[in-house]
């Protein structure tokens, strides 16, 4: 019965974390459990994963919850110890041991070591409080072992060898830190907070991470998602275009072929439909507060370049410059962004966004970029720093464009708070909330 309760609790936790686990899938999982050896944790994990997790984006949350619900060990056999002083021989011994394990890459040994370290040094408050991974990581400071590890395997530093070795060890050190975190979560959960720990630690899948709150690791992972996403979108768009209605009747061809059937037009011929390819002009706020969002939108539109007749991009803070040149076909993603920030002339005086001035400069210098074929896309949080929003200019630009949209990376509930002029702009053009990759992809699909 205990196993069934575990199973039910686990499935409930998965659902709470946002995995769409259906009743049928839950039953499948139970069948799968009957088929595998329950003592083998790897099989158990694989059985659950195969039946319940059908999207790679959910895998991280699944692994975290699995480790909580089906921990490898229970309880704590280690004796809590005081934080060792600097230069304590015990500390040096521990670090030597860790460095040996990292060198060998033995995952089981690493796991056991992490468990021991958390048991010894993980308790806060002099060994009576709750558990902290931060404390353990700081005492051992695994990342400072790198130099020693590299010296151990390399005859001389530098070059390709160092790059490769550095990456291997960085991966193992990250794994160690993850194992420490895992063991800390397990211990907290054992002391009576399984559901609470689960709720506090499960992160949303990558596509739903807020651009404005993304960590650096998130941003790197997101950048890697751009090209697969663009490919998915492009496939969907081509399919959609092909399935669309046929074009206008080709009168001439129809009549010509009808001659062979005595003038009766048995089959009609149509002109091929011209694919709908808008020209895109992107105006993006590149100030620090929203720059990551602007980057993603630019990257995605450029990855989807084939879907548009032409893409021109402009970045502004309080000055404005065209940045199209940095995104040439085949250009490197990261480099394009760095060059855009360093070389483009987008700061005029203060370095705070000034929408009114930016729009005015745009109209004056690049006004002819906006034509009746253009879709105008403005990216920014509409935070004007209490300056003139330049509404008349925007109105004129919109009047000249075929479509105009504003994408705002802030959650809709924050619009109009403080210096945000969201609703002022929203009166003249549609403003979309665009906080994560999912929303961005949805919007870009409607655009193309």
């Amino acid at each position, binding site marked *: 019965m205990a196993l069934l309760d575990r199973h039910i609790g686990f499935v409930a936790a998965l659902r709470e974390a946002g995995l769409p686990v259906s009743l049928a899938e839950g039953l499948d999982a139970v069948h799968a459990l009957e*088929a595998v050896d329950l003592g083998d944790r790897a099989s158990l994990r694989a059985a659950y994963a195969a039946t319940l997790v059908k999207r790679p984006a959910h*895998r991280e949350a699944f692994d975290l919850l699995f480790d909580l619900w089906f921990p490898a060990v229970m309880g704590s056999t280690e004796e809590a110890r005081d934080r060792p002083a600097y230069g304590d021989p015990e500390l040096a011994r521990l670090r030597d041991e860790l460095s040996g394990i990292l060198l060998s890459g033995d995952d089981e040994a690493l796991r056991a070591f992490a468990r021991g370290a958390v048991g010894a040094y993980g308790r806060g408050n002099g060994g009576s409080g709750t558990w902290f991974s931060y404390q353990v990581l700081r005492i051992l400071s695994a990342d400072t072992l790198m130099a020693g590890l590299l010296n151990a395997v390399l005859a001389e530093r530098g070059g390709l060898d160092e790059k490769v070795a550095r990456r291997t060890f960085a991966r193992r050190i990250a794994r160690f830190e993850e194992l420490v975190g895992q063991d800390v979560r397990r211990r907290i959960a054992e002391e009576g907070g399984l559901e609470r720990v689960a709720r506090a630690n499960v992160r949303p899948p990558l596509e739903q991470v807020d651009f404005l709150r993304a960590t650096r690791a998130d941003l790197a992972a997101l950048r890697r998602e751009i090209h697969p996403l663009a490919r998915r979108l492009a496939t969907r768009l081509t399919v959609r275009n092909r399935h669309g209605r046929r074009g206008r009747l080709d009168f001439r061809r129809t009549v010509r072929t009808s001659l062979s059937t005595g003038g009766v037009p048995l089959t009609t011929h149509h002109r091929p439909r011209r694919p709908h390819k808008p020209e895109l002009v992107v105006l993006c706020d590149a100030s620090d507060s929203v720059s990551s969002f602007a980057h993603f939108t630019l990257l995605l539109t450029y990855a989807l370049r084939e879907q548009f007749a032409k893409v021109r991009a402009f970045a502004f803070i309080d000055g404005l410059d065209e940045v199209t040149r940095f995104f040439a076909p085949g250009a490197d993603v990261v480099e394009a962004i760095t060059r855009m920030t360093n070389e483009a002339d987008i700061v005029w005086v203060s370095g705070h966004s000034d929408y009114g001035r930016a729009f005015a400069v745009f109209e004056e210098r690049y006004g002819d970029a906006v034509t009746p074929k253009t879709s105008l896309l403005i990216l920014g949080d509409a935070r004007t720093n209490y300056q003139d929003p330049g509404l008349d200019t925007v109105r004129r630009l919109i009047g000249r464009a075929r479509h105009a949209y504003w994408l705002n990376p802030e959650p809709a509930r924050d619009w109009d708070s403080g210096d945000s002029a969201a609703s002022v702009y929203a009166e003249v053009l549609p403003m979309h909330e665009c906080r994560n990759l999912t929303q961005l992809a949805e919007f870009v699909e409607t655009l193309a």
Partner: protein
Amino acid sequence: MTFTSPGDVRERLSSVGYLPDDAIATTVYLAAALGKPLLVEGPAGVGKTELAKAVAEITRAGLVRLQCYEGLDEPRALYEWNYKKQLLRIQAAGDQDWNATHDDIFTEEFLLERPLLTAIRRADPTVLLIDETDKADVEVEGLLLEVLSDFQVTIPELGTITAVRRPFVVLTSNATRELSEALKRRCLYLHLDYPSPERERDIVRVRVPGIEDALAERLAQVVATLRALELKKAPSIAETIDWARTLLALGLDHLDADAINATLGVVLKHHSDQERARKELDGSSR
């Protein structure tokens, strides 16, 4: 088509040169034990199709393959009547009674079996591989749902044909689009990703006989380093193997910066990716 345990699957797959990890072995075992279709998703070139072939090999089953593409429809996936032959039959019948002719032309002889029907009717052990399911249109998924849930097909003129022996079904997908929830729900799901350097080293050793252990190890680590860069297209296992073969053919037994420079085109197929990799890997070497 039975395995005794995930360990058994692992052993037998290894014996034909496919090195599975825990997840692969367990999931294949479960798919066989529960009789459910197996949906394998992952980037191109990580061995999705190979897995199906390997399973067919170790179970001595026949492999029936349905390659999906845009515009694939029922007549080409399931079955079709051989119209031309039927027409000939009608003409040859002369003044035979219509009813007799009608009964005549809708028989086995005039039925063209397509992969799905073939797989269902086979009495021998069968692995049905439905490749690149994501390329097919959404309507095909509906057809698959029907066939895969009951393993039976209804042909109006012949009646319902039920599987004599359930085939082991593997669907693969590159995730260029999300497959429907309904299809995913009926399948066991396996996400194949790039392997760990240790596993990749072993794969290279098995797949490229004659390669030295040190070179295989080094190759796997360099490829792992490449995958960590922000590339448009990360190198796949298939490309790693190609790379190993290239190095072997060129007689290079050490992978240094020059060797990489000369052969990088084997693993990275975008100019910007190559530039980036050169810059990152070369770094301070000279």
